[in-house]
């Protein structure tokens, strides 16, 4: 039996006890024919099922979540040799022990003897834990069932109880949003604090040299490898600027054209087609940027350089050109954001009341004058809000920059050169071999924290502005 089997058993028993509860309610109704049931018999069934299923499931889930960690801790406690390992090596060893315990496959790193013993202990504890978990959950299910079953009688307010329970379940679901945010903060905060205890925050924020990949020897963590994140911030901002320079005018003007000029038929055809752009996965844009636009940009760069040499323009002649460039990434990202800005702008422009348009037209304004002098100023907060959301999106975009902008931390304003971004670095630092707790890994979490806070602020401002704007015209 594994977790999934138990879950299915639990679910099946919930269905079974539904009918038991329902039957008892029915029988009570018939035997004591004088009293009518408070609720329909089904509700007695639901109530029995819920009390059987929910507490058991809750315990089962929470137990499953923490079981692996607790078992690991217990295993470590058994072996002094493991306790003596550094945190990095311990996590490596633990991984091996887990793999050994679950699959029997052994990669011969570290102390084979200890690891084999530990794996045996790990399996033993894990089995104990699993059996105990099943036992406790089953007991809870039985308890819940008996408790409800015994109480079933015609005066019991089954429907009200069921509904109260349901509302609580709904509330818990709604709270998951908060749990997610807390989970994000929890994931990045502790590691970031640890990172900043090893690398001064000022170096991280203001340092201009980023090279985390330099080999970091044990006990030397933090003293080698440099974590000045300014080139990353710059790369992120630079690519976002390029993207917004493309997306903002194209998206806004297209939105205005579609909502103010185009006939409803043109609008109904063009809009869904442009929305395809929004539905294309970012990895596809990344591929396109890396393999098609990147080489085009590079060739254009070579051409510029040639022109520079011929015309003796020093800046052009010395241009650094590479296949991975901020221009290629920014261009493609800009096109990706166009439909996003288009639909947000379209929404806010349509929200401007027609009375404004009529007022301006009646004074003898042409359509474009009405657009630029009345509608856009009126819709400006909404448009700005949309732009902020778009910027937040550009900053957080990962695949395009990962595939097309490069990993070299250059501090350059040359759009033909490669730069790296916060998201790219998070991916490069966290994929590949995991040495948890190394400064390199911790740096990724610090970057994640920065990314989360930046986008959070942008999003909250943008959402607030857009909401206020909507309320104004509602």
């Amino acid at each position: 039996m594994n977790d999934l089997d138990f879950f299915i058993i639990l679910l099946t028993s919930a269905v079974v006890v539904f009918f038991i509860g329902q039957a008892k309610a029915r029988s009570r109704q018939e035997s004591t024919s004088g009293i009518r049931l408070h609720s329909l018999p089904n509700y007695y069934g639901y109530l029995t099922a819920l009390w059987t299923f929910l507490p058991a499931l809750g315990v089962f889930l929470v137990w499953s979540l923490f079981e692996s960690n607790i078992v690991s801790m217990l295993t470590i406690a058994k072996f002094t040799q493991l306790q003596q390992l550094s945190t990095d090596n311990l996590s490596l060893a633990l991984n091996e022990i887990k793999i050994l315990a679950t699959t029997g496959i052994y990669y011969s790193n570290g102390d084979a003897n200890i690891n084999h013993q530990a794996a045996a202990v790990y399996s033993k504890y894990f089995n104990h834990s699993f059996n105990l978990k099943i036992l406790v959950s089953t007991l809870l299910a039985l308890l819940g069932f008996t408790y409800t079953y015994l109480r079933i009688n015609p005066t019991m307010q089954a429907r009200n109880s069921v509904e109260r329970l349901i509302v609580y379940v709904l509330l818990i679901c709604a709270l998951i949003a908060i749990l997610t945010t807390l989970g994000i903060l929890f994931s990045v905060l502790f590691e970031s604090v640890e990172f900043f205890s090893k690398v001064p925050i000022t170096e991280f924020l203001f340092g201009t040299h980023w090279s985390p990949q330099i080999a970091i020897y044990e006990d030397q963590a933090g003293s080698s490898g440099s974590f000045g994140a300014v080139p990353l911030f710059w790369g992120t901002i630079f690519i976002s600027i390029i993207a917004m320079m493309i997306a903002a005018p194209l998206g806004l003007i297209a939105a205005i054209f579609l909502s103010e000029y185009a006939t409803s038929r043109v609008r109904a055809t063009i809009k869904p087609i442009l929305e395809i752009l929004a539905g294309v996965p970012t990895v596809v844009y990344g591929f396109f940027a890396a393999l098609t636009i990147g080489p085009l940009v590079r060739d254009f760069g070579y051409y510029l350089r040639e022109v520079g040499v011929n015309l003796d323009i020093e800046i052009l002649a010395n241009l650094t050109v590479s296949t991975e460039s901020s221009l290629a990434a920014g261009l493609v990202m800009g096109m990706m954001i166009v439909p996003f800005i288009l639909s947000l702008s379209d929404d806010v422009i349509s929200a401007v009341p027609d009375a404004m348009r009529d007022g301006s037209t009646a004074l003898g304004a042409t359509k474009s004058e009405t657009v630029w002098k009345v509608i856009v100023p009126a819709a400006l907060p909404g448009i700005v809000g949309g732009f902020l959301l778009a910027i937040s999106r550009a900053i957080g975009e990962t695949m395009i920059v990962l595939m097309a902008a490069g990993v070299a931390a250059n501090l350059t304003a040359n759009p033909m050169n490669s730069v790296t971004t916060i998201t790219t670095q998070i991916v490069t630092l966290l994929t590949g071999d995991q040495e948890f707790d190394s400064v390199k890994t911790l740096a990724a979490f610090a970057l994640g924290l920065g990314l989360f806070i930046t986008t959070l602020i942008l999003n909250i401002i943008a959402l607030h502005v857009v909401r206020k704007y909507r309320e104004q015209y509602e």
Partner: protein
Amino acid sequence: MNNTQIVQKSLKKRYAKERRFKIYGVFSIIVSLAFLLFLLVDIVLKSTPAFTQTYIKLDIDFSYKVLNIDPKPNYTKDELFKSSYRNLISKALYQLFPDVSSRKQKRALRKLISSGAQYHLRDLVIERPQLIGTSQSVWVLADDDIDTFFKGLIDRNLPEADRRIKDIQITWIDKLQSKDRIKRQFNASFLTSGDSREPEQAGILGALKGSLYTMLVTLLLSFPIGVAAAVYLEEFAPKNNWWIDVIEVNINNLAAVPSIVFGILGLAVYINLFGVPRSAPLAGGLVLSLMTLPTIIIATRAAIKSVPPSIREAALGLGASKIQVITHHVLPLAMPGILTGSIIGMAQALGESAPLLMIGMVAFVADIPQGFFDPSTVLPVQIYIWSDSPERAFIALTSAAIIVLLIFLFLMNLLAVLLRNKFETKW
């Protein structure tokens, strides 16, 4: 000069501006459409080589000696499994080109054939043991470089050092062609095999299955939870309550948080804290469901809001409880909107790759996953992995995988649009 004349004078300039602006509008739309077209055409063109594969006909002598087994009436599968089939191919090749003698040339000759061809022969023999002892003409898979060259994607006029295929190999290919021993054939293995380091053997079945399992987890978690959360917020949450506001701001913000942040959450919480297996569809689904939740909640709330209060009041007036009103009336009426939003959310999740890189779904997995706990990858991440590979043939494979992904997304969006159009009710 009176007003009329003043206005008249300015009109020409103003109308020129108007025309210019209109041209900008048309221009923006054309640029966007052209980009979309360029993207699609480029990918389709790049993908065409992936639909066929090059095969070479070899006369294989399934001799006992080469296979290193004794003649007997019946063989166990294990015996046949262990035999060396690579030598069958080498021998056939040497036979075909008897004048090749130096070790270096022999190696180049062997490289004509894909390293996967031997497994094909093995499966052939296991399936039909009666082949042993006979000599057969078999079409075997060519190496990816040969394949790329045969499709005309490598220029034979380039200097030898600049291409991945040697001059002598080209003469062999020409010879094979003159003997009708080389051909292109529909690439069925693209859809039926898992990932491989060798482009000619790589397929997307593993990634497709990984995506399927991941999407199942995502759907099973995010749909019920999302709908439940939306019902609570729309129907039960106290109005003008600060912590309900906090939840709402949270949900709206989560919809705009960069996807990679969810990946970090998945790595730190699911994998390191809760011990969910790395690279497994379960981990991927857990991460993606958190990302999809806000989309589903927002869509569901909008759909619930659009159900007119009169219907609620009518049901309440008949003595239905609030939950009954919701389950009997509000949710069924809002269902098309909820489904549309959920499908769009699922389509987003299907195309998502960044957070899955964080939880190890980027690892090379040749086996096809069989469940929620097996290491696997998903289609978009497969695209990322392939696009990162140096072999030229992977470009076509990547593009073909993109087309498969886009087809799935297109079908999902089409379904959403159809649902919306079919059930759209104007109250």
